[in-house]
């Protein structure tokens, strides 16, 4: 029992740590597109390890296999990138401010307009790069 309790405590602490880091990133990072990284990544793993802990806990406590927490994990892993993508798209649409030192302003403008290519010269450049 002691070893399993240690494992459960480890996963719970890991999960809590990642959730906290995700929210610290949300509060601390300077612009929206950077803030987007923190919750989408840190929270998926945070909730994931909390659910692993919960699975272990209930499997041992009731001494039968309890894996229905897997459903929430799968659901969050599928929806986290989708909602991040939708939020980024909405932010591009309403012209959210970016940090001044953000690079790649052509790509940013092209993404806002949903235009096909940043520019002809850029296109030729990229294809050379990917072939080499």
């Amino acid at each position, binding site marked *: 029992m002691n070893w399993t309790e240690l494992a459960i405590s480890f996963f*719970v602490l890991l999960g809590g740590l990642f959730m906290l880091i995700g929210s610290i990133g949300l509060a601390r990072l300077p612009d*929206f597109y950077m*803030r987007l990284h923190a*919750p989408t990544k840190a929270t998926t793993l945070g909730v994931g390890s909390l659910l692993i802990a919960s699975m272990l806990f209930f499997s041992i406590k009731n001494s039968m296999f309890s894996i229905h927490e897997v459903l929430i994990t799968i659901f*969050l892993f599928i929806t986290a990138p989708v909602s991040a993508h939708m*939020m980024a798209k*909405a932010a591009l649409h309403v012209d959210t401010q970016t940090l001044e030192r953000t690079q790649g302003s052509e790509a940013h403008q092209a993404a806002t307009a949903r235009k096909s290519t940043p520019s002809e010269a850029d296109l030729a450049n990229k294809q050379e790069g990917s072939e080499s």
Partner: protein
Amino acid sequence: MLKTALLLVNFMIAMALLLSLWRLIQGPSLADRILALDTLYINSIALIILLGMYMGSPLYFEAALLIALLGFVSTAALCKYLLRGDIIE
């Protein structure tokens, strides 16, 4: 030992909720507020799972699953509102 860890993590997630709440109030843009709401619902899923483990009852699983489903749908609806100015076209 597990109870201590659970209490500690409860505290950590409460801090995470407060930080997201601060971002929700602070803004500055609408997209930031949507992101803060998204983080809030994921944090509350974690809080409910912890509560279930603390109480030793598997009943809280359904609540967590429902919050996950509704949270995703509400994030999608809010983003759609920003994108199109309308939710159901």
